[in-house]
């Protein structure tokens, strides 16, 4: 397999090439971007196929010293935690680029340049194994979206919305920068030795509890704003309203996952004592996100915001799973990250298609009866809606089940209340489906079947949804080792008993879990 750097920088290279060549031609940037994202998708599939869950924790490692004085390494690796997220990213960007190619954009070379820069930055954030590099990619990935929303967004207030979104997110991210630097410095001071930011080295240099706590809070601020979680979701409604659909597909599908991934891959292994200390707080925030997000989702009139608030609720479930601080919860969270991305992107694309069929309006009160001349669209929408509400038989159900099982073991009361979130999910998913597709035909509705190109956008996404629904073990098995090592210390500190029963291997066992490795 080629080096990981190629996977990360290939989209950006295609974007740059497209920007240069695109000065002459309007179609070329879009096609080049499509080629770039397709190539990245191919590489990602190769990495998934090549990943050995029984092998070392970090695979396909690239480790180059970037800034020797500060101990920052340009270190990339595939782990069980990020292998599927990388696949998700490339898949969603491919689908979104395909969808974007179906429209004509003003200044296309610039548009696709920013799009591809965003893909490179997100891939870098997932693959980074150095704390400073992760923070750098995390902050960087927001800037192309600033330009995409501000320059090509939907009119009322796109500039204000994008400034608000960027500042709100960067408030958290900059706090995380300070915390990350403090981690490196304090780890070197307290543990002795040269300053370093490489994650595996930092894991061997635990910080004192006091330091861990404020650093944890700063990291939590950044990730909670990113996901977003209640009550830090204030940027979401305006931001979601302003984005073009193709941009929103990747924003909602992928960017929020970087926050959740950060919790699992960085916060839990590096700051386990703080994670245990703040476990109840985080679970409560997650619970509030689930309930508030669901309540908003089934009350919203704008179809986009239904999807947006449902994302708040789903990411609440993911946070819940992560802070259950045991393997089931974390496994479920990781699976749900992939699932939610796979489901929200087609959902948003469908919202765009619905708007085309309802006279340009995304208000559900204007929709209705769209299914009658668009059976394929209705079927696809139904599959996506059922997956959103975690219908048993879908991979989302497996993920949610594992999350709730994990939380059930950790904090019973919170789990019981969280179950209501499952019910509310079905309310908002079905409400959207029924009000858009069934009942009386809306006043300005002019329904038609989806085109072949629309189908091409859906095909890979639905294919993977169905595949994972039939065989979720594929994802669970490969990520098991990494997830276990990520939650190991936090779990031990939280005093959760190790699983008495291994669901996946079918044997009852209380064997200690193998310790972490560099």
């Amino acid at each position, binding site marked *: 397999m080629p080096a990981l750097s190629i996977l990360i920088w290939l989209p950006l290279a295609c974007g740059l090439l497209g920007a240069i060549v695109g000065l002459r031609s309007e179609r070329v940037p879009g096609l080049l971007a499509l080629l770039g994202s397709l190539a990245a998708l191919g590489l990602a599939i190769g990495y998934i196929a090549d990943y050995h869950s029984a092998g070392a924790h970090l695979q396909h490692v690239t480790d180059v010293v970037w800034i020797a004085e500060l101990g920052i390494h340009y270190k990339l690796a595939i782990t069980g935690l990020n292998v599927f997220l990388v696949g998700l990213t490339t898949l969603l960007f491919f689908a979104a680029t395909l969808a974007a190619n179906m429209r004509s954009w003003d200044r296309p070379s610039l548009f696709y340049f920013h799009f591809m820069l965003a893909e490179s930055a997100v891939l870098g954030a997932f693959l980074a194994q150095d704390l400073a590099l992760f923070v750098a990619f995390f902050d960087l990935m927001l800037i192309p979206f600033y330009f995409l929303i501000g320059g090509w967004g939907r009119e009322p207030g796109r500039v204000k919305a994008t400034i*608000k979104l960027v500042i*709100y997110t960067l408030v958290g991210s900059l706090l995380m920068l300070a915390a990350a630097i403090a981690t490196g410095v304090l780890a070197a001071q307290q543990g002795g030795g040269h300053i370093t930011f490489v994650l595996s080295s930092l894991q061997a240099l635990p910080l004192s509890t006091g330091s861990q706590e404020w650093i944890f809070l700063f990291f939590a601020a950044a990730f909670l704003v990113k996901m977003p979680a209640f*009550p*830090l*979701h*204030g*940027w979401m*409604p305006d931001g979601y309203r302003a984005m073009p659909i193709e941009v929103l597909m990747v924003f909602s599908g992928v960017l929020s996952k970087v926050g959740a991934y950060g919790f699992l891959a960085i916060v839990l292994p590096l700051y386990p004592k703080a994670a245990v200390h703040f476990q109840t707080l985080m679970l409560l925030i997650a619970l509030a996100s689930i309930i*508030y997000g669901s*309540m*908003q989702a*089934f*009350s*919203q009139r704008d179809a986009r915001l239904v999807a947006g608030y449902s994302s708040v609720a789903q990411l609440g479930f993911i946070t819940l799973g992560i802070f259950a601080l045991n393997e089931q919860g974390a496994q479920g969270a990781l699976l749900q990250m992939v699932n939610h991305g796979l489901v929200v992107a087609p959902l948003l694309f469908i919202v765009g298609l619905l708007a085309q069929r309802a006279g340009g309006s995304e208000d559900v009160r204007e929709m209705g*009866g769209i299914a*009658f001349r668009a059976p394929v669209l209705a079927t696809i929408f139904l599959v996506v809606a059922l997956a959103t509400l975690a219908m048993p038989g879908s991979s989302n159900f497996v993920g949610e089940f594992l999350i709730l099982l994990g939380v059930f073991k950790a904090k019973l009361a919170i789990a019981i209340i969280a179950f209501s979130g499952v019910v*509310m999910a079905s*309310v908002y998913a079905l409400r959207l489906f029924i009000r858009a597709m069934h*009942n*009386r*035909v809306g006043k300005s509705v002019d329904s038609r079947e989806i085109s072949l190109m629309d189908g091409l956008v859906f095909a890979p996404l639905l294919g993977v949804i169905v595949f994972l629904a039939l065989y979720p073990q594929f994802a669970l098995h490969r990520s098991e080792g990494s997830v276990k090592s990520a939650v190991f210390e936090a779990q031990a500190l939280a005093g959760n008993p190790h699983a*008495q*029963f291994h669901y996946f291997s*079918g044997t*009852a066992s209380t064997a200690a879990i193998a310790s972490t490795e560099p």
Partner: protein
Amino acid sequence: MATAVSTPTMDPNVSKFVGAKRKLFINGKFVDAASGKTFPTFNPATGEVEDTDVGFPGPVHAIAERAIPMRVAMGLLAVGAVGAGLVQIPKTDFVIDDFLRPTFATSKLYEPHTKNGLLVVGLGLGTVLGLLGIALAHRLWVARPGAATAIRTRTPLGRALYELFYNKWWFDELIDALVVAPMAAAGRFARDTFERRVIDETIVGGVSGIVRAGSAAVRAAQNGFVRYYAALLVLGVAGVGFYFLLQT
């Protein structure tokens, strides 16, 4: 009410016409009434209001099982139900128990091949009640037609029971009042009030308000007069000097 249609599929134009709101054909055009009023159409068989706005051709009702596919499906379900009942007859066969044993073997609540006699009592009671129900239904509807209507119209208890059953125990209304309405109200509260007041105005607006107030203060202090700047400089020097002198 969507029902299966046993007639051949209609041409879309026809079904559109049939499903459209009826208007008055005057002067070669379909027009609304001058007053704008409409009246509902009733289904003569059941007396309920016809919903003619639903997209599919509405007004044709038929018993579902007339269609072959439906009959096949129902038949399969019936066979399956019987089969499912047969596999776990208490004290006789334990197919499901054995199937589930690996999953529940380590649970404290698991008891293989229960020998509990209550199961048989329950089975028997259920069978008896079922047979009684069939007998009652036969008597009311088949043996003496009109008996049901007589009970309903002549006895107050009958009337009350009929209302209860006809309105599905008001179960829907109960759920609506206990669960749906409060949730919807909570959702509306979240959407209209909470999101605006707390999230937007307090958190986002509050923080940016503080920053903007600071900005206004700083810019107000920058009024352009040199003597003012010099005064502030002197004040600053005094402040710094005071701090340092405290160190002695």
